């Protein structure tokens, strides 16, 4: 370094610098006009589509005051996208007025609001556009799409049958989930078997996890469901078909869950092990009382995600002929040449999985909040 003192270039003795955040803003005319054009175009499309729905309903034998009421209601709702646009227009006028009286602060505030409102109008208009497109798809080809997937009379008629078959899915995944929890933990603990004596166990566990994570679930179901009865092994060959698929799913998902447990156990800092061992607790006692209880808390969200995946995988059991909801709905689809019963199955799966995913998300949020708060 030289002898001279280095200073920032602006730190001289000249006049003090002022913050420069721009001049008088311009009114966002182009943005407002774009939003206006979009709103008009989408609203026209909406009105046309609502008219088509009404015609379809009347043509389909649905008549009465409620059709007209729904028509009026839908029309009103479709015009809601104009509301932010009106606000945007008012703010836009405020900008012009503020510019006229040279009030730079008011102009900035109004411009910012006009800008935001315009974008809000565009956002909602775009969403409505997507809805219009979807409805148009359903109405296409003389409502063939709607009738193929959402034929209400068939849905109502076959609902009891599909729901009854859905209980098979529920039975399979509930039993499999319980088994997976236990089996996954056993495999995970085997992966941590200590010392040289534990090495064969560690290898077996690792091979099992690798193999069963690699094989597609549908293959395992097929191999177990058809293969085991063929072998004629005593006791095993007399299980029900449902038991085979439960075993198959447990084997497959158990491999994933074992990995999840392992990650949970490894996520616990080694100092916890040191503390437990230093008190004289054995390897197994340390795992049981200190490490696993903490690890399990960390892995509840990923575990629930795996359960949701397992629930959906129960639809694969039709390959061995279990009459679950999907299989039942395919039979109905073949008989009626219509897929509405399959839609019922989809809706049932949606109904059970969305609450669970929301629950997992909330739990993860809570965990993150707790982490931020410095808790454990």
């Amino acid at each position: 370094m030289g002898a001279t003192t280095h200073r920032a270039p602006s730190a001289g003795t000249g006049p003090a610098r002022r913050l420069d955040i721009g001049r008088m803003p311009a009114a966002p005319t182009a943005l407002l006009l774009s939003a206006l054009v979009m709103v008009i175009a989408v609203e026209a499309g909406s009105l046309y589509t609502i008219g088509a729905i009404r015609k379809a309903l009347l043509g389909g034998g649905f008549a009465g005051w409620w059709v007209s009421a729904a028509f009026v209601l839908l029309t009103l709702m479709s015009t809601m996208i104009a509301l932010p646009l009106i606000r945007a227009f008012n703010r836009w006028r405020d900008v012009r007025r503020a510019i006229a009286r040279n009030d730079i602060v008011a102009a900035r505030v109004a411009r910012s609001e006009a800008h935001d409102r315009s974008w809000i109008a565009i956002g909602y208009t775009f969403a409505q556009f997507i809805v219009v497109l979807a409805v148009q798809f359903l109405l296409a080809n003389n409502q063939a799409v709607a009738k193929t997937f959402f034929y209400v009379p068939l849905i109502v008629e076959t609902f009891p049958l599909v729901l009854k078959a859905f209980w098979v899915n529920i039975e399979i995944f509930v039993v499999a989930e319980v088994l997976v929890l236990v089996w996954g933990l056993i495999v995970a603990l085997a992966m941590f078997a200590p010392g040289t004596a534990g090495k064969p166990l560690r290898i077996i566990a690792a091979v099992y996890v690798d193999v069963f994570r690699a094989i597609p679930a549908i293959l395992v179901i097929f191999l177990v469901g058809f293969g085991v009865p063929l072998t004629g092994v005593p006791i095993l060959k007399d299980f029900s078909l449902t038991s085979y698929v439960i075993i198959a799913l447990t084997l497959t998902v158990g491999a994933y869950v074992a990995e999840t447990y392992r990650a949970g156990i490894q996520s616990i800092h080694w100092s916890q092990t040191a503390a437990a061992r230093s008190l004289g607790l054995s390897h197994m006692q340390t795992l049981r009382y200190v490490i696993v209880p903490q690890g399990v808390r960390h892995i509840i969200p990923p575990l629930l995600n795996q359960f949701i995946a397992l629930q959906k995988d129960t639809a694969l059991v039709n390959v061995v002929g279990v009459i679950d909801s999907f299989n039942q709905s395919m039979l109905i689809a073949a008989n009626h040449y219509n897929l509405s019963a399959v839609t019922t199955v989809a809706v049932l799966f949606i109904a059970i999985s969305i609450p669970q995913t929301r629950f997992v998300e909330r739990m993860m949020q809570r965990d993150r909040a707790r982490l931020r708060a410095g808790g454990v």
Partner: protein
Amino acid sequence: MAFIEIRDISKSYGDLSVFNHLSLSVDEHEVVSLIGPSGSGKSTLLRCINGLEAIDHGEIRVHGDRITGPGVDVNALRRDIGIVFQGYNLFPHMTVLGNVTLAPIKVLRLSKAAAEERAMALLSRFGLANKAREYPDRLSGGQQQRVAIVRALAMDPLVLLLDEITSALDPELVSEVLNIVRDLAEEGMTMLLATHEMGFAREVSSKVCFLCDGSVYEEGPPDKIFDEPARERTRAFLRNIRDAKRI
């Protein structure tokens, strides 16, 4: 015969030598402080005494029994040798009472009632009785470290190893932890502590060992080590500490 007899031990991680023919002895009811620069092996030495780390050569004897090498029941060893860590290492999923009673119940096979009675007696003695039902994350650092000491004491150990137990604490919390150690020293608990608290080491210890280059570079009574260190590196170390106003 000394209570803890560390004889000529060596240990290395790959090329990095941690102990190089280190020998040290601790008598019963004696408090020995280990001081020395970071990385001089103070913590590792404590961890070797309770079997958390293995040594490569030499041996460690407690009461004449060899506790290193093959054939040693480390679980039994650790029952009688308590250790307290710099980072407290309490079990976050258990209450204070759960932390203190876990090992007495599972390892010493005490009944739950007996373990809790013992735990409450210790907690009361150290002013923590009202925290028994709290979880560790609701406690201050000083309280957590006191609980960790109680957890080690609940096993009724023959010797207590203290591994820089005040290094993670805010300065105003240090004294509440050191008061406990002072109490235990007066009571005659055999202790071996790794520490950076020179003033405390001087006050409480019967012997101070300066560790350097993997062995005990200089040892002696605290007044001798702190006031007239005989060897050059001890003097340099203490000079640095004094320059930093930490003594």
